[in-house]
Structures are given as C-alpha cells and as structure tokens.
C-alpha cells in the first residue's frame, strides 16, 4: 500500500515534468524545489498565521501555480530560443536559487508538516493499512483525474494539447500560445506542490526534501515515456510499488538503486519509454 502512496507522489511529479516537456520542451530541474517552496508556504501559514490546514494547502497550491507561471513568463520564455540543454541549465540555476532561498528564509532546521489528519492503522481482512497511505494515494489519484478531465473536456485542455502537438499551427489558428504555455507551467507547478504536500508528512520538511522524488519523478517519466502523460502515471506507480517491493523483499538499501538501474533496463528494451511514441524526424 505504501508503494501506491509513494507512487502517487512520484506520479504527480512525473506528470508535471511530462506536461512541461511536452508543451515547452524543457526538462524542469527546479520542479522539486518549486514544490518545496509551496510546502514551506503552507507550513508558515499553518504555524505562524494559524490558518487551518485545508485553507493553507489550497492557498499554497494556488501560490505555487502563480509562481510557476511567473517563472515561465519572466525568465524562461525570453530564453526560449536556446538549446534544450541551455534551458535545462537555466532551470538548474533556478533550482539552486530556490533551494538557498528556502534555506535562508525558512531555515534548514527540521520541520514537520502534518497531513490532513492524523494517521491511523486500519485493518481490512487481515492486512493492515496506514490511513495516511490510503489518503495520499487517494488524493494523488483525485488530482490526476482532475488533470485528465481538464485536458479532455475543457477548452484550456484542448488548447494545451494543440500547442503540445503543433505550436506553430496553434498560433496560426489564433490560440494565445503564450497564455497557454504559461498556464501549463502554472498547472505543472501546482502538481509539484501537491506532490510536496503529500510527501512532506512522511519525511522532514527541509529545502532539499524533494530531491529524491524529483530524481525518481524524472526516472518515472522516462520509464513511462516523456511524450506520454498516462505513461508518467504508469511509471510513477510502477516505480513506487517496485521500490517498496524490492526494499521489503530483496534488501532495504538497494530499493533506491533499483529505481535508477530500472530506467536503464527499460530504455534498453524500449528507448522511448513504455508508452512513449517514436518521433518521426524530418531529414
């Protein structure tokens, strides 16, 4: 069960990363740090301003969306003509800035961000579940469902898909590409923030908290296929479950290493990920 709950975190991170890659072709290495910023904001609202948890969480999600959108609009979009590697390095720089910003403003001491409610152990048919795990998995799935509905049934979702497929044609047809891409970044950052909020109760809240999930998120996205959103979800859950299984039954330490070796194994068999499509290159 905990595999599914940690899988939800990885899947959310991977979804955001794939969304950003498909629309703006940027590998966002600042994704984790953006999520941590939101978690810190939630923490500050909860502890210093005594705002109830749900409101804090929602506000921090919104804040993350706004910050992500602004980041794209002000820093990344002006640089959009650079090579993909250059943009990657740009996001790395942003990650450093955000990381140290968090450390300076919020401190590196170990904080604890609580979950929506206190954890309880449920027993269903001889197997014990952690309520928190169930909740994490459930909330994660809910968000993914929300994203799916957004993409399929709203005009924004349609615009996003159009811009992801053929940006020039979309612009020629009159779609506000800049607005669409900015909202893509907003949505993706919101997902990252959600992942951070779900992850934080299981660990200590500190600036480098999301480093592991970010790496695993990238791995999950690649395993599923960088061009496939369902692939990201699949990759995330597969990674989460396998990690817990390997950790429990094979050896505790190699659980994590397994993830990183798994990606190489998958890519050898399917170079574009499990659900990725082969790109046809015009020569």
């Amino acid at each position: 069960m905990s595999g599914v709950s940690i899988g939800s975190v990885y899947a959310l991170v991977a979804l955001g990363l794939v969304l950003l890659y498909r629309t703006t072709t940027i590998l966002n290495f600042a994704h984790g740090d953006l999520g941590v910023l939101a978690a810190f904001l939630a923490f500050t609202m909860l502890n210093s301003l005594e705002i109830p948890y749900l409101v804090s969480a929602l506000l921090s999600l919104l804040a993350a969306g706004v910050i992500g959108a602004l980041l794209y609009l002000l820093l990344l979009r002006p640089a959009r003509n650079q090579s993909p590697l250059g943009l990657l390095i740009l996001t790395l720089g942003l990650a450093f800035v955000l990381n140290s910003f968090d450390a300076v403003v919020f401190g590196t001491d170990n904080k604890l961000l609580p979950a929506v409610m206190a954890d309880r152990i449920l027993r269903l048919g001889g197997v014990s579940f952690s309520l928190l795990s169930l909740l994490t998995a459930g909330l994660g799935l809910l968000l993914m469902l929300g994203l799916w509905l957004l993409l399929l049934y709203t005009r924004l979702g349609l615009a996003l898909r159009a811009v992801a497929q053929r940006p020039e044609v979309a612009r020629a047809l009159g779609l506000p590409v800049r607005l669409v891409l900015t909202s893509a970044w907003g949505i993706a950052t919101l997902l990252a923030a959600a992942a951070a909020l779900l992850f934080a109760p299981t660990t200590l809240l500190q600036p480098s908290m999301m480093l592991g999930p970010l790496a695993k998120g990238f791995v999950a996205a690649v395993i599923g296929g960088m061009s496939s959103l369902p692939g990201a979800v699949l990759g995330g859950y597969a990674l989460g479950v396998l990690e817990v299984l390997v950790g429990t039954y094979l050896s505790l330490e190699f659980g994590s290493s397994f993830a990183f070796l798994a990606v190489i194994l998958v890519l050898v068999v399917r170079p574009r990920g499990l659900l990725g499509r082969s790109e046809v290159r015009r020569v």
Partner: protein
Amino acid sequence: MTLHKSYRQDLALIRTPMGWMAFGLLAALLLMVPFLPVVKAYVFDVTFFLVFAIVALAMALLVGMTGQVSLGHAGFLAAGAYATGYLHGLGVPYLLALMAAAALSGLLGLVIGLPALRLEGPYLAIATLGFGLAVQQIINNWDLLGASAGFAIDRPRLLGFSDPPFYYFVLLVFVFLGWMSFNLERSHVGRAFRAVRDAELAAQMSGVDLARIKTLAFVLSAAFTGVAGGLYGSLLFYVSPQNFSLFLSIKFLLMVVLGGLGFLPGALLGAGLVVGLDTALARAQSLSQLLFGAVVVLLMMLEPHGIYGRWLRIRRYFRSWPM
C-alpha cells in the same frame, strides 16, 4: 587575421608568436604557483581546479563535441577514485592504480555507452542520471568499500604528504590529458564527434561509424574522469559516497555549458568559474548557493554560448574592426 604560411603552422596547436607568448605565460604561472606570494596558500585549491579541469575536458568531449548529455559523471569519478584508492591501499604502485582506474571507468563508459546508442535527448540525460545515482547508492552499501563511511587513501608515496609535489603531479597529468584532448579535437576523430553532434544522418552518410564514434566518446570521457577520480580521492585523502552526488554531476555539466559548450578552452574556463565560485563562496553557506544559482541563471539568459562564446564574439568584433 593570422596568415598561415605553411601547412605546419596550420596544423600546429599553437599557431602564432602571440599564441606562444600567451601559452608561455600561462605555463610559467602554473609552474610558479607554489612559490608565488599570495597564491602559495591556495595550492590545494589550484590542484582541485586542475582535477576538475580534467573532468571538464572529459565532459567537453562527450557533451560538447559529441552532443551526448551526461548527468552521471560523478559515477565515473567515483569508480576511478575508489579503484585507485583500493588498489593503492593494497600496495599497487600509484601510476598503475591510476591506469587501472582509467580502464575500469572506461569499461563502465562502455557499459553505459552501448545502451546509450539508442537514446537521445531527455532519455539519455535521465539514463545517465540513473547511472550516476546507482553508482553512488551501490558504493554506499558495499561493505568492502567502507559503505557509507568510505575509507582513507594515500597520495603517491614518492611524493610525500605535502601539497606542492602532488600539485606538480596533477599538473603533469592535466597537461598530458589536455594535450591529448586538444589534439583529438583537431583529428578526424574530433571532426567525427562534431559531425555526430551536428548532423547525425549526414555524418553516417559521409562514412562515420555512428556506433563506434558515440561509444568511443563515452569510453574516453569515462576514462578521463576515472583518472580525475583517482587524483580527486588522493587530493582529499579520503573517499566516501557523499562526495559523488548528483550535485557533483550537475556541477560538471555546468562547467561545460557555462564555459562554452563545444569549445575545449570553454570547458577549462567553465571549470575555473565553477571551482572559483565554490571556493570564493565557501564561507557563506546558503547565500553562496543563492549567488551561484543567480550567476547560472544570469549567464544562461545573457550568454547562452557561455564565457568562451562571449570571448569569441569580442575577439571577432576586434578582428573585423572597423567594420
């Protein structure tokens, strides 16, 4: 503009009297480091820079010239460091241990390079990321290599324990590998690398064996980094898994991109920038990272071609003056 009066001059690495003067000055400076008044105290840091410069050369070969992004070079560094340390600890002569480390890293480069033939773009980057992290995790759990505590290693016993003799040894290795890199760049192999980076299909049509060249780039890059790893471990007198993190791999990538992707001198400049920033900002912990990140962002926004790219533009401006 320089007029080349002979083929010899065209083929040479240093072509003009000005070039020789600049080179001579640089060589003199580097040789005098342990004796110059202010710089004397920083022998360790300069040695550190030279070790990272070797990795920068390796990264330039793979990422800059062949276009294959690697986010896992810390893994090759770790392999080299641990191999050298372990073998030297068993009594193997240092140079032999270093060469064995290079061979081991090269082998790892082959192991990664072969599957990497099928990958590109984000897939290659994340696969190498996975490799680097996997290496770190494996050595973290391998009791023979000290697990999470690591183990202490020596410098070459002939050189003693002080910094200056080791500095000259590292300088020698750096000069040798640098000379090799610059020559490689000018050779048909270097041209093949760049052809693969710029137009893969066209390169294949022109007779470049894609698989061989790409794998060669990986193996060479890994071997160089392995040597640097051995020197790195000896420099610090210690190896432990924490030293070989994703953060280090990212720093290596930053070195080549910030300095100028695709240019060997750019890689060296980038190494200087990264190591210099690290050393200068070492005192203010979190603030240093903030400034570092800000520098990265600003540099990438203002000059995507890196420091050396900017230098080339300046030089071009003056060369074509008054037009």
